[in-house]
């Protein structure tokens, strides 16, 4: 098979047939990669819902150079030979993306100060880059009751942006379909079948794939802000999963365990619930060393030994203040 040539924001790359525009853009680098809230490489049929990855195809292909009439979702559009794509260089795309971010934030509570996801939230990053400083929504935002999905996961639907990633996790990792979307339109809601607990060894991955703070780890809720913790790569011999995880530590104490996320916020390998929730003793793990973080990540700001100015006063953890 011959490689296809695609140009994104004036940068050209050759990719294999079947690659989507988003994947091609990620190969070129973060400078041209559109943001994605619902697309997840490792989940089949994900993507296409949030519309943040909209791009303009200014030239369809070498054979058919007509531009596409509408903006397309780059995560679900495959590249053609000679395709030319405009992402950040097109004002139309930037404008549409700003609109999408405004829609996503329209009913989002913006309760970042009390949200466990703060610091590693994709919506936070996205609204920082594309959002307005002030909302134009003058109406009451929709709210939902919190729901427990099993004893380890809590669903806070009010924060959800309906990316369907957790639905795909439940669909593709569990044998029975108990997790899905009920109702429609603005009041649609992620739900488990009549409040069934999702009882599966891999259900914890819903927390990792959630781009916002809608699904949170109940063993970690309100324990600490993520940027106070030090991420350390570690592994253990696990008979269910690869056992390759990231430990989030404060001193020697392990506060939480997640999968290893790459620069696009997607886990490298899904991990099982035993590794995630039950093995919190340092003796369970073989540490590999500190996890590399992007210099721009808010999490890297609070690191020991990071090249930021060290704050002399001791950091007190929120939960210790409470006790």
């Amino acid at each position, binding site marked *: 098979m011959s490689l296809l040539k695609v140009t994104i924001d004036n940068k050209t790359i050759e990719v294999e047939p079947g690659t989507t525009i988003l994947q091609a853009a990620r190969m070129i680098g973060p400078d041209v990669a559109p943001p994605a809230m619902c697309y997840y490489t490792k989940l089949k049929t994900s993507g*296409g*819902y949030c519309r943040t990855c909209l791009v303009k195809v200014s030239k369809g292909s070498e054979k058919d150079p007509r531009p596409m009439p509408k903006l397309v979702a780059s995560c679900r559009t495959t590249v053609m030979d000679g395709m030319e794509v405009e992402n950040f260089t097109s004002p139309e795309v930037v404008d549409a993306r700003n609109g*999408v971010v405004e*829609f996503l934030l329209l009913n989002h509570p913006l309760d970042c100060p009390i949200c466990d996801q703060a610091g590693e939230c994709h919506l936070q990053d996205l609204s920082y880059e594309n959002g307005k400083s002030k909302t134009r929504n003058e109406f009451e935002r929709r709210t939902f009751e919190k729901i427990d999905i099993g004893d380890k996961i809590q669903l806070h639907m009010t924060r959800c942006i309906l990316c369907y990633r957790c639905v795909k996790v439940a669909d593709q990792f569990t044998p029975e379909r108990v997790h899905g979307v009920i109702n*429609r*339109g*603005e009041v649609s809601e992620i739900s488990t079948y009549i409040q069934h607990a999702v009882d599966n060894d891999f259900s914890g991955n819903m927390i990792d794939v959630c781009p916002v703070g809608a699904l949170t780890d109940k063993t970690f809720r309100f324990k600490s802000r993520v940027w106070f913790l030090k991420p350390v790569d570690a592994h253990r011999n696990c008979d269910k999963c690869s056992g390759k995880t990231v430990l989030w530590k404060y001193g020697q104490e392990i506060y939480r365990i997640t999968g290893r996320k790459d620069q696009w916020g997607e886990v490298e390998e899904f991990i099982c619930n035993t590794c995630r929730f039950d093995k919190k003793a340092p003796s369970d793990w073989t540490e590999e060393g500190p996890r590399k973080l992007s210099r721009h990540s808010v999490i890297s700001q609070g690191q020991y030994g990071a090249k930021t100015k060290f704050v002399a006063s001791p950091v007190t953890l929120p939960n210790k203040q409470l006790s």
Partner: protein
Amino acid sequence: MSRKLLLANDHIPGIQSYEVYRSNGGYRSVEKALKTMSPDDVVEEVKKSGLRGRGGAGFPTGMKWSFLAKPEGVPRYLVCNADESEPGTFKDRYLMEHIPHILVEGMITSSFALGANTSYIYIRGEYFYVARIVEKAIAEAYANGWLGKNILGTGFNHDMYVQVGGGAYICGEETALLESLEGKRGNPRIKPPFPAIAGLYGCPTVVNNVETIAAVVPIVNDGGDEYAKIGIGRSTGTKLISASGNINKPGVYEIELGVPVEEFIFSDQYCGGIANGKRMKACVPGGSSVPILPDYLVCKTAAGEDRLMTYESLSDGGFATGSMLGSGGFIVYDENQCIVRNTWNFSRFYHHESCGQCSPCREGTGWMERVLHRLEKGMGNMSDIDLLVEVAKKIEGNTICPLGDAAAWPVAAAVRHFRHEFEHHVLHPDKVKDPKHGHREPIMPVKPQPVTA
């Protein structure tokens, strides 16, 4: 007098029953197609006829049929979209209620052309009694050998099923319809792949509107060339128009495409003029999703030509001064109707019917509805009007399926043509607090205004 093809036998008593339908020339097209034509011949006739999809988008049917993938060993399906839920459109209900056999006949002929051995008629939940009528017609067709194994001894097998939906507007979108038919949540699929490649159960599928399928019957009977003689330009044949609103004779009319809009509204043969001797204020020519037209653009285009009931003429001038034929839901408003209230009503419908899959439509329709509600109740301010335009622009074209566009267009068009009325709502909140405002006297005098795009 306009020629009728679909409703030609509508006046005959008992036409719902098989015997009367058959004795009036029914099922001739099945006989002709199965015995004397090849499937490709039928597709060729439909192509020649220039028939365009009657569900709203107006895509050429023959072309759609020829796109159908034909891999070996994979079944193909024909699905009839009878999920007619557009506010202002009721032509399919009329057709199925009065002449159910023309749909069954068209389905058999079309399935033969496409090589489909199974077909489905997806009827919206609210049309439950219509589903009973169609089911009875199908049972009669089975009993008389038009369906089942080895039809007319030609070796063509065909089974037809009726599926009643749950009453969701979104299931009228073809991929959402297929999802619903498969027993899933009716969310539109992301295209490509199009249903012609991977549709129902992943097999090649054609989804057509009720009226489109019924129109295949006269095309096969009389030939595509004969059908193409009716109409003007690329708008050929006849079209069912469901006329409603402030007119003297609301109802379903079969027109030859190319009838002037003025004649359609004012002649006694059709709508019979505006009711109660009032003036026309506005018109929605193709169902709630298409842009509204003010009175001075209904009968004449911006260039001063007569506007005709055709796909091209109604969309003349683009969205600045034109509209669309859409599904043929022709709604006329007299001077006492409040455009803001009407726009709010449409917007409320789209808010309720949005499936919630993609963000612009899920959040935007609700936002527009709330802003319009505020304006209508006299609690809005001037910036709301521009906000509406901007939100509509952000939704339009950025969604998975056309529901987002359908929600945005009527709002944008109403603000474009009736901005003064929105402003009136902001400036005189005391006058519009009464929910019946405008009923006794016009909200504002109808005055023609030039439009700048």
